[in-house]
């Protein structure tokens, strides 16, 4: 753009100097050129020529650094407060730094502790987490020092991407426990809400059902499919020598059907 653009935003360009990666600078430069830009991940990827999957993490880093903020509807915009803070910071310690040194206030502790299921409130921008005991216990996470990074590692997912996408996501763990993550606002809190669902043994039940189904399929193959295949080939090219085998095949099929599918002559359902 021309000289006009520089006259408005050249002061903001100093923000980019603090950034290490070229990708971060590339994205931030678009916001510096137009401080009203509110592109989402997809539009930014198109604008910068970067791969969409790369843009999400870079945006998350820029948000974490306080340079971008949510613009609603999945969009991001320049966080001009960062510029104000940077400017004030040259003469005075920014209040945000002081706050960062102190542990975050546990505003929702009474509510979270009253819940029987594990719930955590994750602030994506700061990484701070407020969770109840049940959450740490059900996910085998430490109660002290619990942060967004620990949770992301445990759930093997990118919390920033989930927050950007807005849509709720269900992360299933190996022991049948699942965690639903969704963006939400509650009073002063704005971030991701994680709710643990231990499934009431549903995982064990479904595992048992799968085993039963597998056994049944194996039996079906053995008692129905193979004899039927033999019968088909026999009917195509009947041989006297195979007549006995064909009869045996029919008997096997009949026996299976009688056991599982046909009514018992006594009137009792065979599987009851």
């Amino acid at each position, binding site marked *: 753009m021309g000289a006009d653009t520089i006259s408005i935003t050249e002061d*903001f360009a100093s923000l980019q100097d603090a950034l290490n990666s070229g990708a971060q600078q590339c994205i931030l430069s678009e916001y510096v050129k137009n401080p*009203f830009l509110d592109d989402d991940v997809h539009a930014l990827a198109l*604008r910068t020529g970067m791969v969409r999957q790369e843009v999400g993490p870079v945006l998350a880093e820029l948000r974490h650094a306080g340079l971008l903020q949510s613009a609603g509807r999945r969009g991001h915009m320049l966080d001009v407060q960062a510029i104000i803070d940077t400017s004030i910071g040259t003469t005075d310690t920014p209040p945000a730094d002081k706050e960062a040194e102190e542990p975050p206030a546990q505003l929702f502790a009474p509510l979270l502790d009253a819940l029987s299921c594990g719930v955590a409130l994750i602030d994506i921008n700061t990484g701070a987490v407020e969770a109840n005991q049940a959450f740490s216990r059900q996910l085998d996470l430490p109660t002290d020092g619990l942060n967004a990074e620990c949770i992301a590692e445990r759930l093997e997912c990118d919390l920033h991407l989930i927050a950007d996408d807005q849509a709720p996501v269900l992360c299933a763990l190996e022991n049948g426990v699942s965690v639903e993550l969704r963006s939400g606002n509650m009073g002063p809190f704005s971030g991701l809400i994680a709710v643990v669902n231990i499934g009431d043994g549903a995982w064990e039940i479904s595992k048992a059902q799968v085993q039963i189904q597998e056994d049944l399929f194996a039996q079906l193959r053995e008692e129905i499919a193979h004899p039927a295949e033999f019968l088909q080939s026999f009917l195509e090219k009947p041989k006297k020598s195979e007549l006995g085998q064909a009869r045996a095949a029919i008997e096997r099929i009949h026996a299976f059907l009688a056991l599982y599918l046909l009514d018992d002559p006594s009137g009792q359902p065979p599987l009851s």
Partner: protein
Amino acid sequence: MVMDIRHLRDEEAASDSQEAIEAEQEPGLVDWIEACVDASDPADKARFITQLRLCVPSDEGIALLRHLVSSAGGARALLAAQVLGHHRTWLSTAAGVKQHLALARENEASAVVAALVWGLRQRDEAAEFIVHTDNAVAREAALATPVSRRTLSPILAGLRAGIRPEVERILLHKLHQIHPSLVRYLVDLLVEGSWGEEALRGLFASLPQMALFELFLDTRHPAAWALVDTESTRFWQRLVRLASDVLVAGPGCELLRHLLSRSGDDEAFARRHGSFLRDAVRRADANSGADLVGHVERLTFGASEEKVARLAQSLVDLSTRLDGAEVDKVHTLLEQWKSRSADLKLKIYHLEQGIG
């Protein structure tokens, strides 16, 4: 009794004039823009930008912003254009859009025009600036233009005219996500101008492959315009050849799965597209190999010998693109098929030896 209220009236009048003075003194849009441009401290600029974001311009405010864009020039005009793009209440009326377009057409500062075009994002009207001589404006127009029946013609005109690589990249990326139902309309528009080989190749490489295949290769009925005269027929044939080249050069997993499914189910289809399928499979992306082998395995589960024989050729071709566990899986599958009958065994053996 009559009450003397003259002094009350005087007080009322005095308070009204005071309010009027205060209202006049209350800073507005233009003041914030002026202050933002004049401010030397970045923190002050940032505060004014916050104010400009938060305010809700009235009709008068929008008119003032337009006036600034057209008359102020420089940084003021640019900032006013950006504020207009941020607060887009003017989009709700046709007159508002018309005035915005007029501003963009008349302005001579490219940065301001780019900001005004940004204000037209996701509007068909942005498409007219794709062929703008200034790169920043054309880029912003390409980013702002949605792909629709109305914008396809200007998009194609831009691609045909040879726009800058970055603008071309943006437009081709957008065309990649075009709805398949629009592809035939797009192809009908191609006949409107003369296209270079490379431009057409780039365009076809960006379009949805399934739609291209169905339109050019899996149809017996060309577009109506292709039958008008010899030249049109020749152009259609050129498009068919190009589409075939582009699809074979980089077949996607979705297209290959479709080809394999149809070839398995329909002998006539398999005969018609046999050589195309063979060429496409031989250029399949190795990363999609496992997916395709799994697909063939599912297709042949309990299938007839004829279907298995038809798909065996593809599986043998596919195995040349794979390595490691996937090749083992192919061999296991082929061995399973061989055990089904002597005929099939011989046929697969011939395919493996390259004499099928």
